[in-house]
């Protein structure tokens, strides 16, 4: 039986043995011996130890002893060395063999190979370990949550981030670490995902171990069982601080730049910039200082989070190194970093104690650069704790300073532009000036609102030449067209013309035009147009007043004319008396010559009327004034007169050119009288051209030296001129070719010049027109009695041969 049993045991598909409680084997079946390559005698007693992997023996024996002690079946795993030296895993199962008394005197064991399972287990273990390492090594927080949303596990990164022991973390409310501002939204979404099993994707700030919040994107994905139930939630958290900061910065930049673009006041823009800094660099207070126009002192920019007392003690500080960090940053054009004010040695006199008193412990001041070499101001960031800017801070600062530079420079230039535009608009309004541009290539004309108002057209009506011509005064149409022709030459010009408005009112426009090239190189005029109507109207009133004055002045010169006037009266008187005498004679004759007498009476009546006319004119002129003598430069006198007459001349569209000789001797005489002569000559010249439209109405006024240091002044016109018949009478006291004129001018002028011992004459020009000239000696003889000279001296007084001549040369 024993033998049979032994054969059975040997045949079992397992390694079977029996051992005593102390671990000595007393039987090992054939398969055991075959497997291990040990003989029975080798393996008996403690020989079997040699077949056990040394690392596993201790564990195996411990299990054995425990099993023996308890008397219960035991089980252990250990590696068994095969006959070829390869160790493989076996399960050692033992059970006590009980004797009749129920005592376990012997133990039976069976070893079954579990190598394959062991290997699978090992592989799983290694793979799990590797997986955990990967999870722990993830640069992201990974959390496992129960299907109910309770924290279950997390990777190392996550545990380190929150810095809270595992158990404690599990005990906390699930939203404990979420920024209060982000909590409601996140919990709403998380609750929704738990309820529906849908993926979760949120952005929120979570509290880090050091007390700072950071932005995370949290992705939640459910892990489901085979039956579809949710086994677990995987939450992956990625830090998006950089992106969030960039977003905040970008949004802030956009806001600031929008403010700049829409022309918001600088103060608001700078406030927004400070807010942006404070949003982006957490925990700091930001201020911006600018510099005044002379770059000499700090000016307040913005400091929304700093106390007023702090701001006021910075504003106005000189831009020097000693003034404080901002002044130093502006002065040096470099960052000034004071990481710990309690250890700071600079600005100890003033700024530092002030800043410390305000509770500030660090300050970073960064200059805001503009174009090369110029600094607009500085941005300062303060903390109530010592702090040095990190690389990330510096990156943000760099970007903010860049925006600040753009914003401030734009805002400043906008402000300057607005000021200058407002100034210009106000100037335009005050001076009734408008602007226009005209592209010569297309004829396109652009008007400012002021010009629309001047022309009384609806603003925005397309401007065409035809439209303009409907307003141009008909009398000025000719010169207006001249101006248009002249534009083709591309020269700058000044032009004045009138508008005739539909209500019959006249407007005077004064145009100063400058020719230039537009961006395409085409000729373009830019012109300022001024409504000078009030000025012109007052000038017209002035001209009236002036002509009154001129008349008075003429009359005042009349004293010099007594002889001439008597001459004019005596001529018709002489005719009357001669005719009357003759009439008497004819009537006394026998037979009376009635026909002859009638003729003499007719002539008598005519001469009587002529005398009456002379008297009537005299009445209008009669008054008297003494002449005043002084020494003067005739060119200067002429210049004064031209200036005086300019508006009148321009009104007649007359151009005056001077050709004044240098180094003329001065002349002595009555300035007013001489001015009167020149004025007469100018106005005559102007009048002579009033009908001229086919050539320029030009007057040339010349002064030159005559023989014997005499000074000659000539006025040359381009008018109708005069023929020899008229030349005879030009200087007659009451001769005039003008229907409305008095004709006294030339006669008076001749008398005045004669009283200055000079002469006045006229010659027809080679071309159109005539030239009137007078020449006076530098100092009249007998100047002692000059005070009465103009009144009493007659042209005949000293030199009849010359003075009696009218000096009208008949070339």
């Amino acid at each position, binding site marked *: 039986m024993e033998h049979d049993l032994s054969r059975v045991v040997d045949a079992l598909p397992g390694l079977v043995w029996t051992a005593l409680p102390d671990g000595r084997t007393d039987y090992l079946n054939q398969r055991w011996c075959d497997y291990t390559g040990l003989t029975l005698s080798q393996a008996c007693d403690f020989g079997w130890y040699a077949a056990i992997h040394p690392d596993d023996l201790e564990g195996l024996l411990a299990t054995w002893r425990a099993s023996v002690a308890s008397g219960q079946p035991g089980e252990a795993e250990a590696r068994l060395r095969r006959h070829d030296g390869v160790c493989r895993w076996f399960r050692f199962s033992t059970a006590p063999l009980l004797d009749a008394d129920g005592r376990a005197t012997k133990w039976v064991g069976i070893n079954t190979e579990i190598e394959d399972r062991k290997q699978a287990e090992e592989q799983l273990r290694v793979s799990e370990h590797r997986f955990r390492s990967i999870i722990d090594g993830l640069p992201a927080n990974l959390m496992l949550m129960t299907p109910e949303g309770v924290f279950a596990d997390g990777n190392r990164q996550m545990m380190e981030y929150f810095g809270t022991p595992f158990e404690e973390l599990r005990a906390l409310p699930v939203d404990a670490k979420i920024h209060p501002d982000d909590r409601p939204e996140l919990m709403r979404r998380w609750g929704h995902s738990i309820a529906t099993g849908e993926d979760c994707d949120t952005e929120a700030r979570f509290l880090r171990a050091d007390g700072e919040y950071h932005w995370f994107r949290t992705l939640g994905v459910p892990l489901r069982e085979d039956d579809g139930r949710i086994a677990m939630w995987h939450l992956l958290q990625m830090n998006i601080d950089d992106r969030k900061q960039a977003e905040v910065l970008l949004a802030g930049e956009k806001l600031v730049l929008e403010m700049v673009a829409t022309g918001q006041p600088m103060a608001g823009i700078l406030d927004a910039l400070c807010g942006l800094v404070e949003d982006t660099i957490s925990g700091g207070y930001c201020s911006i200082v600018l510099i005044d126009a002379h770059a000499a002192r700090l000016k307040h920019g913005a400091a929304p989070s700093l106390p007023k007392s702090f701001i006021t003690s910075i504003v106005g500080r000189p831009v020097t190194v000693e003034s404080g960090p901002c002044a130093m940053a502006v002065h040096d054009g470099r960052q000034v970093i004071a990481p710990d004010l309690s250890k700071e040695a600079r600005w100890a006199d003033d700024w530092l104690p002030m800043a410390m008193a305000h509770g500030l412990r660090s300050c970073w001041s960064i200059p805001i650069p503009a174009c090369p070499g110029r600094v607009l101001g500085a941005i300062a960031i303060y903390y109530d704790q010592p702090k040095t800017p990190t690389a990330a801070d510096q990156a943000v600062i760099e970007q903010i300073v860049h925006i600040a530079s753009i914003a401030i420079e734009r805002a400043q230039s906008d402000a300057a532009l607005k000021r200058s535009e407002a100034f210009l608009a106000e100037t335009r309004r005050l001076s009734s000036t408008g602007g226009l541009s005209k592209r010569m290539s297309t004829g396109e004309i652009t008007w400012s609102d002021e010009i629309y108002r001047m022309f009384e057209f609806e603003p925005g009506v397309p401007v065409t030449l035809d439209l303009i011509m409907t307003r141009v005064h008909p009398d000025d149409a000719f010169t207006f067209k001249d101006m248009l022709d002249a534009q083709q030459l591309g020269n700058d010009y000044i032009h004045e013309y009138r508008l005739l408005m539909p209500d019959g009112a006249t407007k005077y426009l004064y145009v100063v035009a400058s020719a230039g090239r537009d961006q395409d190189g085409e000729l373009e005029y830019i012109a300022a147009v001024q409504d000078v109507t009030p000025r012109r109207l007052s000038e017209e009133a002035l001209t009236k007043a002036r002509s009154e004055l001129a008349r008075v002045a003429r009359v005042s010169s009349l004293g010099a004319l007594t002889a001439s006037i008597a001459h004019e009266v005596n001529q018709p008187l*002489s005719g009357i008396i001669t005719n009357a005498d*003759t009439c008497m004679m004819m009537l006394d004759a026998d037979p009376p010559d009635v026909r002859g007498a009638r003729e003499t009476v007719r002539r008598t009546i005519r001469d009587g009327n*002529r005398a009456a006319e002379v008297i009537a004119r005299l009445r209008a002129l009669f008054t008297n004034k003494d002449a005043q003598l002084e020494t003067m430069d005739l060119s200067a006198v002429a210049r004064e007169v031209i200036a005086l007459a300019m508006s009148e001349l321009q009104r007649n569209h007359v151009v005056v050119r001077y050709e004044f000789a240098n180094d003329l001797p001065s002349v002595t005489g009555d300035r007013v009288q001489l001015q009167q002569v020149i004025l007469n000559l100018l106005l005559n010249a102007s009048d002579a051209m009033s009908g001229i439209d086919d050539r320029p109405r030009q007057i040339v006024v010349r002064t030159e030296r005559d023989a014997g240091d005499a000074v000659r002044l000539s006025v040359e016109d381009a008018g109708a001129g005069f023929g020899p018949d008229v030349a005879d009478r030009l200087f007659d006291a009451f001769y005039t070719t003008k229907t409305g004129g008095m004709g006294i001018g030339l006669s008076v002028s001749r008398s005045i010049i004669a009283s200055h011992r000079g002469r006045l004459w006229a010659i027809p020009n080679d071309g159109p027109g005539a030239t009137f000239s007078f020449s006076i000696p530098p100092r009249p003889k007998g100047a002692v009695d000059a005070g009465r000279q103009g009144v009493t001296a007659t042209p005949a007084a000293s030199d009849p041969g010359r003075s*009696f001549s009218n000096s009208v040369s008949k070339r």
Partner: protein
Amino acid sequence: MIASKSLVSVVDDDQSVREALPDMLRQFGFAVQVFSSAEGFLASGYIGQTRCLLLDVAMPGMSGPDLQEELRRRRQPIPIVFITADTDATLRPRLMEDGAVECLFKPFSHTALREAVRAALGQN
């Protein structure tokens, strides 16, 4: 046959004078030629026949004294009675000194004229 009438020439730029004087002079029995300017007289060919010249002082172009000077230069002296509308009293003595027969200030009476012309013709 009566001796041909003495020719009195009138040179004056004033039309009234040129129209009025000839009728009166003819009433006195003189022949009369009128000229509006000294130049016109010089060019007329009547210089030789003129026995008396009634000459205005101030005229455009050549004045009365200019003409007197010119005639003297041509050695064709004619007795001259100046007539002037001027009122300057110093004029007459100067003109008389220069050889004028008389200087009449306009307006003048027919008797003053007749006497002056006769004086010029050497008739009194």
